[in-house]
Each structure stands twice: as structure tokens, then as C-alpha cells.
């Protein structure tokens, strides 16, 4: 693999007891790339995300950031390495202390960055970047925000350390269709504006979103197929990928297609 790769995972393996969550998964992400990771529940997507950010220690394999191997556990990583990879949790209500105000939630990230003398985006600017309307909620307890609003606060919080990679772990699964689309548009905009690479974990693909570069399909801990987004519908061969395509066509039939 070439040196300009931002993030590389090589032969990641993780077993939970007898269940293999990841089996020799190798994956790479170039700067500013948008990678969509798809798979059914229990296919190892979240484990992959957690291994990358250091929350889960893999049994084998390693993660490289700009060619340099990262320590398996986040506690052993340098702050710059931690700041470079930011994780957005599935459930925004579990990811923040709901009794804290939005300001306090964001200031925590700023405080930790400042302590490590890491350049931090000011909290208000990060929030404004994400959604200027949220500045109204600056002083409100996080628990009083809606799921979509709170997830945007989490995105703003993830932007504060100026990351190079954003990992969105099913970040839209708690939101309704409109909210999910809005969040993906937001993530896509952030990717363009800031040049952040985006690794989004989802369990079904919306082929109407065209800002993705690649799709990686997971099943049973294996990376079964990896294709450019544009060629996916034409070239996907794996049965699970075909099934994904079929289900999408079922729910969103294209022009001229009908089904009973």
C-alpha cells in the first residue's frame, strides 16, 4: 500500500469467546475519502470501528495512521493520534452526560485538547459549523434536545479536535428518514469543507447519496466485497451485496422498474 494512505488496517482479527467478530480484515482509507461500511448486525462493523479508535484491542493485526502503527489501546496512543480519529456514537443520548448543557458537553473536548496543546476549534464555532440554529440550545441541558439535534452536537464535539478521520457508527440509526438524510448531508459537507475522511457504518445503503467513494461489505467478520460506490450496483458479486441491492430496488424502484 502506498504511503499517502491516511488510515490502514492490516489483518485485524478479534474474537469474542468463540465468535469471530473480525477475521483478517484489511482496509485502507485515503485522506478525505468517504467509505461506507455495510453489513448485517453482528458482522463486525462496530468492532472494526472500535479497534480503529482504540476502544477495543484486536487479537491480531494493527492499525496504521499515516504509515505509523498505532498502539492497540487508546490509553497508549499519543494525543495527536487520538485527536486524529473521532468517533460518533450510535445513540447520542448515551454519548453525552444528559445533565450537562450543550456548552459543557463541547467545552470538555476543548479543555482536553488545550491541556495537550492541541489546536482545537472553539466550541461555538464547531457548533455553528454544524448547524447555526443549534446555538439557540447552547445553554440547554443536553437531555432536552431531540435525537437529531443531539447527534449534531456530537458531530460538533467530534470536530473540535480537528480530526482527520470521522467514524460514524450507525450514527443515523436512531433518527427518522429525514433526520438521517440531513445528518448524512451534514457529514458529506464536513468532508468536503474540512477534507476529513469519513468512515460511515450503516446497515443499508442509500444509493441516492452519491458523495461516497467506496463501499465495503462485511459479513460474519469478513470483508467480503470492496468496490467503488459508482460501480457497486453493476459489479457486486457477493450474495449479500446482491441482496442489499435487491432490497434497495424493492423499496425505491427505479424508473421503469416494477415489482409485485
Amino acid at each position: 500500500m502506498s504511503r499517502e494512505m491516511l488510515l490502514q488496517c492490516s489483518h485485524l482479527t478479534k474474537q469474542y469467546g468463540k465468535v469471530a467478530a473480525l477475521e483478517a480484515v484489511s482496509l485502507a482509507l485515503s485522506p478525505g475519502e468517504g467509505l461506507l461500511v455495510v453489513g448485517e448486525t453482528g458482522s463486525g462493523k462496530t468492532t472494526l470501528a472500535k479497534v480503529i479508535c482504540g476502544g477495543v484491542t484486536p487479537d491480531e493485526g494493527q492499525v496504521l495512521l499515516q504509515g505509523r502503527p498505532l498502539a492497540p489501546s487508546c490509553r497508549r496512543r499519543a494525543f495527536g493520534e487520538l485527536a486524529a480519529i473521532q468517533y460518533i456514537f450510535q445513540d447520542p443520548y448515551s454519548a453525552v452526560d444528559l445533565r450537562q448543557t450543550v456548552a459543557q458537553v463541547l467545552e470538555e473536548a476543548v479543555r482536553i485538547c488545550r491541556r495537550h496543546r492541541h489546536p482545537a476549534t472553539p466550541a461555538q464555532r464547531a457548533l455553528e459549523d454544524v448547524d447555526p440554529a443549534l446555538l439557540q440550545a447552547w445553554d440547554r441541558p443536553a437531555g432536552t434536545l431531540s435525537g437529531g439535534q443531539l447527534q449534531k452536537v456530537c458531530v460538533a464535539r467530534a470536530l473540535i479536535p480537528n480530526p482527520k478521520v470521522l467514524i460514524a457508527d450507525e450514527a443515523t440509526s436512531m433518527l427518522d428518514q429525514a433526520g438521517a438524510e440531513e445528518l448524512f448531508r451534514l457529514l458529506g459537507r464536513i468532508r468536503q469543507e474540512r477534507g476529513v475522511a469519513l468512515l460511515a457504518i450503516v446497515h443499508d445503503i442509500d444509493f441516492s447519496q452519491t458523495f461516497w467513494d467506496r463501499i465495503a461489505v462485511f459479513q460474519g467478520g469478513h470483508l467480503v466485497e470492496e468496490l467503488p460506490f459508482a460501480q457497486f450496483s453493476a459489479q457486486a458479486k457477493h450474495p449479500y451485496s446482491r441482496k442489499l441491492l435487491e432490497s434497495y430496488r424493492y423499496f425505491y424502484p427505479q424508473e421503469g422498474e416494477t415489482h409485485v
Partner: protein
Amino acid sequence: MNVIHSDRLSLGASLLRWWSALSISKRVCSVICLLYLLMALFGPVFAPYGADDFSSSSLLPPSWEHLLGTDEMGHDIFSMLLQGFRLSIGVSLLAGGGSTLVGTLLAFASCYFPRVGGLIRHLANLMLILPEMVVILFVAIFAAPTMANTVLAIVFFSWPRVFRIAHAKILACMGKNKVQYTLLLGGNVLDVARKVGRDLYPVFGTLLVLQCNRAVTYETTLAFFGIGDPLLKTWGRLIRSALNYENFFYDTTFLWYLLPALLCVVGFVASLSILIFDEDRIKDD
């Protein structure tokens, strides 16, 4: 930029909110506890006789001069009782607070530093095997009879119970995403402790009251067995000397000698216990 935190309540407002959420029995008990604390602070000031004033005649019945009579040595029992407030409650707060603090800090350390954690857990488990009271008694017998040793013995041998409960709570809290976030961002021990602490403080409060309660019982028991500083008249000591009175079973001296100290202990323990009654219920609103 100056941000006004509109959701932050002032101390008075949050006290009022806490008070209005209490049930009647808890309100009564918190007033009683407050009175106990005030007595511990100011009680000895009102003692009509000094701690080493043995000038009165012995075994006087209650009178206006000696509200609860005198003991065998001619010491005013009412004065001793008042001094007992400061001593017994002092021991309770020191030993109870100490063991709660030690137990909680060790529980946090054991969760945050997994390598040392195993060791602390094993130690706590080992100590839980031994009957706490017997060990405290045994150690206190051989230690020099000072108040400090009594407090230390209680702290040292009663933290494992706190540890068990706090550990379970902290471990669950460390697994929550909001704490995981702080770890993933490279927050230090204090950042994590701050987040865990915000979830832990109701449990911490309950444990603190529980331990203060236990400590005053232990101290009383130790004094009952004649262990501890013989010159410092805690309630337990007072009970002990009332029981030592030779005509205990033959006259009514116990009414003003034994009973007041006993009631003080029982009242304190009871009101502390009621204060932490579990009245949690699913709220309709």
C-alpha cells in the same frame, strides 16, 4: 464570553427542591439529624460541668443542678451526654466518611487501572470473608486505646463493603459511551472521575450515611466491650459505665444513667437509616 447557565440552580433553590421531594418521615429525620449535628457542634458548650469535674456527690438523682443526676464518681451525667454528642458523632463522621472515601476511591482506582484493580478486588473479597465486627474488635483490643486507633480500625476494616457497591456502580458507568468518549479522547483520570462522579453521587451519599450509621454502632460496641480511650466519654462509654453500676438491677438509676445515652444512639442510627430509606418509585409525571 460570559454565558449564564440558566439551568444551574442556586444552593438555596436546589436545597428547596431536595426538601420538597422528601417524604414526611425523611423530613422529620433530616431535621433530627441536623439537630444531632448542631448538638455535636455546640452541645459541649452548654455542658454545665467540665469533663473532669468530679466535685459533686456520687449517684445523685436528677435535680435542677444535675439534670440527669451524677455517676459513681460524682460526675454530671447530663454534661457527659452532651460531650458524648461531639465524640460519638465525630467518630461516626470520621470513620464513616473515611471508610466511604477509601472504599469509593479504591473502587474507582480498581476500575480505572485494571492491572492494580485485580489486586484490590481480591483484597476486598478476602476482607469480606472475615466477620467485620470481630476483626475490628480484635484489632482494637491490641491497639493502643486511643480514639484515633478506633477510627482507623473502623475505616480499615469496613471499606470493603463500600468498595463492593461502589465498584459495581463505577464499572457499569465506565462502560457507558459518555465515559468511553472521554477515554477515547485521551481525557485523564480527573476527566473520567468527574464524569463518573456525576453518576455516582446519589450512591455515594447513601453509602456515606450507611457507613456513618455503622461507625457509630461499631464505636458503641467497642466502648461496650471496654475498648477505646477510657477518658473520652462517648455514648458507648456512658452505656458501659451505666451497666457497670453495681445496683443496676435493683434501683431506678438506669432511667437517667443508661437510658439517655441509649436513646441518643438509637435515635441517631434510626434517623440516619430512615434518611436513606429506598422510596424510589416509577414517577407518573
